[in-house]
């Protein structure tokens, strides 16, 4: 019934690991030699994710992804961190190019890859609207026509001549989103940005996106960890896992397999080689896992289970004053709490850290944690995002009495109920 507006044909993307290590110039020369001088036939075959030689020292962020998007569709892109979502979006918005494959499309694309993309802190809201519009390839005249609608939708009338560095992050997102949607691109790419705004604005955005796709037949590509938003908004979804497209179908089905996947495999993560491990030249992660207090055999966590978040990592700095912060998020991306360790001096080598989370604290639901490593209490060394996913399950006894409780946490605080005075006369009981 409607035409295909994006045709993704077998795209792959490879990144070299350890580009800082200095042999890139040599590598480049070697590849250049193979391709142009030695005319080796299989030089191009090197650029193939199936080639085993290309699996060490290279990271395939995407492997032979193919899919189509039709006009007016809202396509959800789902996957854990590192599954390749961001790489895919970056390729679609032309920031980077694929290593192999081809994408064909129709119509102007606007992408909202991060909060305040293309926003300049020193400039006022007004100037930023024009700057963003210009970046999307709009002329000043076209932007002027939409200007009032943008400001009204974002709700920043009062602050339009204030530099955006004084905006709250919510205002930032609102403005960015308003610019993107009112400049009427035929295809919109939205990455996670909605997680930042307040829930009222999220609803407004989702409604606006739905309207854009239903009434104006615009196409939306939507990446989110908010499974509810994916289910209610998207008409179709795809699931990425380690760079591969593993599922393509109805949002309900895709969300279900995503959830079952993260439940099963993200309670522990381990890297054996320092070069493959996530991190940078200061910190490399060796292992993260979640350990229930009761027994090492039990891997399920109920609302009553106390558990420990355990970390092992390589510290590559000789002398380090280290602080670790743990951020715990709901699956929808809302930050529940941040907890910070005491600063501690450590030497280079393998460091172990753990943080105990008490039982009777988190409510049922899906959570993930991110870990921030800080040096000298000031400098961010590495932010290990979304490193563990877990589900807190209902305790069987509990459910009989209360059903699901409200809120993200359900702590047991000292609570007393006392009989202060007894009723004496009869008849006062109704």
């Amino acid at each position, binding site marked *: *019934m*409607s*035409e*295909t507006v994006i*045709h993704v044909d077998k795209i792959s993307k490879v*990144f070299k690991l350890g*580009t800082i290590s200095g042999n*890139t*110039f040599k590598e480049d020369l070697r590849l250049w030699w193979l391709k142009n001088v030695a005319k080796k036939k299989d030089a191009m075959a090197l650029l193939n994710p199936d080639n085993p030689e290309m699996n060490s020292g290279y990271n395939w962020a995407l492997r032979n992804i193919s899919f189509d998007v039709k006009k007016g569709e809202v396509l959800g892109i789902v996957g854990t961190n590192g599954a390749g979502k961001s790489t895919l979006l*970056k*390729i*679609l*918005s*032309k*920031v*980077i*190019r*694929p*290593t*192999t*494959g*081809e*994408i*064909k*499309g*129709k*119509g102007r*694309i606007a*992408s909202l*890859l*991060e909060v305040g*993309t*293309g926003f*300049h802190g*020193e*400039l006022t809201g007004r100037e930023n609207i*024009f*700057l963003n519009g*210009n*970046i*999307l*390839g*709009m*002329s*000043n005249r076209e932007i002027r026509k939409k200007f009032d609608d943008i400001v009204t939708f974002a709700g920043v009338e009062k602050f339009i001549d204030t530099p955006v560095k004084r905006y709250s992050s919510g205002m930032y997102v609102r403005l960015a989103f308003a610019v993107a949607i009112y400049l009427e691109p035929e295809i919109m790419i939205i990455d996670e940005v909605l997680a930042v705004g307040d829930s009222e604005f999220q609803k407004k955005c989702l409604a606006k996106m739905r309207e854009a796709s239903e009434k104006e037949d615009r196409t939306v590509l939507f990446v989110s960890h908010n499974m509810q938003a994916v289910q209610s908004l998207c008409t179709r979804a795809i699931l990425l896992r380690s760079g591969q497209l593993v599922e393509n179908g109805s949002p309900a089905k895709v969300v279900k397999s995503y959830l079952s996947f993260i439940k099963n495999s993200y309670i522990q993560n381990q890297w054996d080689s320092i070069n493959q491990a996530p991190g940078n030249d200061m910190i490399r992660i060796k292992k993260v896992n979640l350990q229930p207090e009761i027994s090492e055999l039990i891997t399920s966590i109920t609302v009553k289970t106390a558990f420990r978040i355990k970390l092992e990592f390589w510290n590559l700095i000789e002398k380090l004053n280290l602080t670790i912060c743990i951020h715990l998020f709901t699956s929808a991306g809302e930050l529940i709490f941040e907890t910070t360790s005491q600063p501690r001096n450590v030497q280079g080598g393998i460091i172990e850290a753990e943080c105990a989370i008490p039982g009777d604290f988190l409510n049922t639901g899906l959570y993930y944690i991110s870990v921030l490593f800080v040096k000298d209490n000031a400098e961010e060394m590495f932010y290990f995002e979304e490193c563990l996913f877990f589900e807190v399950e209902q305790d069987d006894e509990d459910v009989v009495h209360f059903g699901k409780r409200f809120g993200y946490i359900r702590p047991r605080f000292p609570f007393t109920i006392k009989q202060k005075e007894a009723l004496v006369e009869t008849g006062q009981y109704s």
Partner: protein
Amino acid sequence: MSNIAENSNWTWIIRPKKGWFDLELKEVFKHKDLLVRFIRREFLGTYQQTILGPVWIFLQPLLTAFVYILIFGRVARGAGDGPPDGLPNLIFYLSGIIIWNFFSESIILTSYTYINNVNIFGKVYFPRIITATAMTLAQFIKFAIQLGLFLLVYIFFMIKEPGLRPNEWLLLLPIALINTTLLSLGLGIFFASLTAKYRDLHNLMLFGIRLFMFVTPVLLPMSFFDKHSEWKWIIVINPLTPIIQVFRQGLGGNAVFDGGLFLYSTIVSIFIFMASVLVFNKIDEKVMDVV
């Protein structure tokens, strides 16, 4: 709407590599308002958080000229006869300095295109050449203001020294300025492409530009090089030499000037510009993987 037309009228295609001549000129043209915005931002941004603000535009070349007069004025005079190229000292040095500053600062600032814009380039796409061009053109605006000031100084000297009069060579100044712009933008984006991946080449570039100044008649007049003919060929093949010389000639200078060399400089400038645009465009497809 119609599914018959499907698979045919794609408006864009993303491929692993783009052709050498796939310059996306349509896309570049669409972003012309962005270019203007970037130029304005760059130009205004330079003088924020300085005490003297835009006064620096005038002060900097004047101070430089006085220093050069003090140091090199003697050498130039000792080498030859009378004032350099037959121009008053201040006119001689200022004319060279403003063109040289425009040239060198454009190259240096433009060569930082990728390094200074990693954040925005990593998140949105627009033709990168827009940012690079804006850098050079912002420098051009600064140069134009300096040129205005310079002409005031020149008029003052014309009143003081009745022998000093401009001549028909000055009509070539607009072409000379276009050449300078093409040359510095070209070299700027060429170095931007190189240094994006191999950053240490930046130091080499800065060093090279400093050396280049000594083979350009900024500090010493042509008459000095006429006397040291073993070095003269380097000065002559330098495409910037005829640009500065045509300017001084038009102001009433008396150096031996060859119109053929000016034509040569024009051709070299256009060639360097076009070749650099192709290199920049080709390298661009990989830069965001490595920056």
